[in-house]
């Protein structure tokens, strides 16, 4: 499999050579294959957002280098060289509805392709496709984005990124502030897009349930350092280690762990999602219970 992203000993220091200097990334090295779904977890201030901003060249490493979609980024890389990368790597920032500004929803979605030199008509066509991909009803396309509900604004903002047809999709807590239904819809949307468009997805999240459900590998950050890169199955079975680093567990895993503590019941492997948990429990229940009720 080809590598999509490769970090080599990346350091990033905010405001170097001042009393405010702060090292946000410290010797971070990892690589992610094409079409992988990677979750990045860690506490606030652990360097997740800084890391994410390197992926489309908003920040350049202070030392070290990284490769994203065959584009090398070193401390010396100029912004001009990065323009093409911005098109290939779509970043959905936290509360992305803050980026909306156009008069109509459609024009706002079409903003990015126009910036990359696509003509008006084609951009509008792409925007319509993107709006459809995020399931925005046609009726809102001519409205002002500021008239919409929070959930719909979020979709417009996401469509404004998807419209670039990126190969890598970076999501920085994309569901923060949404209600449970909106949350689920958005997460499923990303999973669907990933398989349809063969995207490489990177998700920054505090929601361990999402990490367990969607990611195929997890990067754990702490104080600017990359602690470990593992599959969710490996990571969430080290309950002690997670506790030590004050990281949460998926609800299903926590439930299973508590049951194991209080009984002789053993799960193998430790379930990560509610449906895995239900399957394992169902095997131990006498058949036909549901019919009795």
């Amino acid at each position, binding site marked *: 499999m080809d590598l999509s992203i490769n970090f080599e000993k990346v350091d990033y220091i905010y405001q170097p050579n001042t009393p405010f200097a702060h090292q946000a990334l410290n010797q971070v090295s990892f690589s992610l294959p094409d079409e992988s779904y990677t979750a990045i977890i860690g506490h606030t201030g652990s360097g997740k957002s800084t890391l994410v901003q390197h992926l489309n060249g908003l920040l350049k490493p202070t030392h070290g280098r990284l490769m994203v979609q065959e584009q090398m980024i070193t401390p010396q890389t100029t912004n001009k060289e990065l323009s093409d990368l911005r098109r290939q790597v779509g970043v959905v920032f936290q509360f992305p509805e*803050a*980026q909306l500004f156009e008069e109509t929803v459609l024009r706002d979605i079409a903003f*990015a392709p126009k*910036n990359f030199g696509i003509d008006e008509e084609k951009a509008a066509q792409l925007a319509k496709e993107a709006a459809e991909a995020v399931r925005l009803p046609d009726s809102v396309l001519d409205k002002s984005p500021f008239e919409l509900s929070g959930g719909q604004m979020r979709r417009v903002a996401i469509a404004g990124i998807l419209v*670039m047809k990126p190969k890598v999709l970076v999501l920085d807590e994309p569901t923060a502030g949404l209600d449970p239904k909106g949350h689920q819809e958005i997460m499923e949307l990303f999973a669907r897009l990933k398989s349809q468009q063969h995207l490489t997805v990177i998700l920054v999240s505090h929601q361990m349930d999402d990490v367990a459900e969607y990611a195929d590998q997890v990067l754990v950050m702490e104080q600017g350092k990359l602690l470990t890169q593992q599959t969710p199955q490996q990571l969430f079975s080290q309950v002690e280690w997670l506790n030590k680093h004050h990281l949460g567990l998926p609800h299903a895993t926590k439930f299973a762990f508590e049951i194991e503590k209080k009984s002789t019941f053993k799960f193998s492997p430790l379930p990560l999602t509610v449906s895995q948990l239900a399957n394992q429990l169902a095997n131990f229940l006498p058949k036909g219970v549901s019919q009795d009720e």
Partner: protein
Amino acid sequence: MNKILLGRYLPGSSLIHRLDPRAKLLLSFYFIIIIFLANNWSSYFLLFFFMALTILLAKIKIGFFWKGVRPLIWLILFTVVLQIFFSTGGTVYWHWGILSVTSTGLVSGIYVFCRFVLIIFMSTLLTLTTPPLEIAGAMESLLKPLKKVHFPVYEVSLMLSIALRFVPTLMDEALKIMNAQRSRGVNFDQGSLMQRLKAVVPLLIPLFVSAFNRAEDLATAMEARGYHGGEGRTKYRVHQWLYHDTLSCLAFLALTIGMLLLRNW
């Protein structure tokens, strides 16, 4: 973004940091007035010596002060050049039409440069050693006498503190929006002047929207906590005039006397 030094406080516990903000505010203004008393080399020397002393007392690296000068350097040089070319008197070294370079011109050019540097250094010292909110507080208490003439002292100082408080917040917000728009292909630092002006629209509109939202939230939060105008409000930070404040006033008095003596020398 980080080039803007205005309102950037460097935490510390030096003597200068601990001075009463009212004293600092008044004395820095006073220093700026005193600068205009200087009219010969020895008096400028005395001012620089005094400035150096206060910087030493504040324990702040001199580099920060030069950073304060840098954004204004073109304005300063422009004024200096005007002084040099348009002053008359003394030995004439070169002249062409109304332009001339004379010994008086050169000297007053250097004087103007010194004045600018001193003014910027002193105001930088004030903002580096005093948190913005303390400055606003000091202004409020100094403006209090104006209440007699129905000047809205509390409201003005509240507006000032809110404005100062939200400078970093809005800067963060602007940075976030810039990042989001950059990711959508906006180029803020390339292209013609027209293109760059156009690039500001996708930054300014979201920034205004969020500033208005924030203002509304803030108003709600203030009302929820019982804000009803400044009348009868007590202060969390109470200014206290201490021994070292009087001492620093005395230092300025000594400086004034020194300046007056040197001036007529």
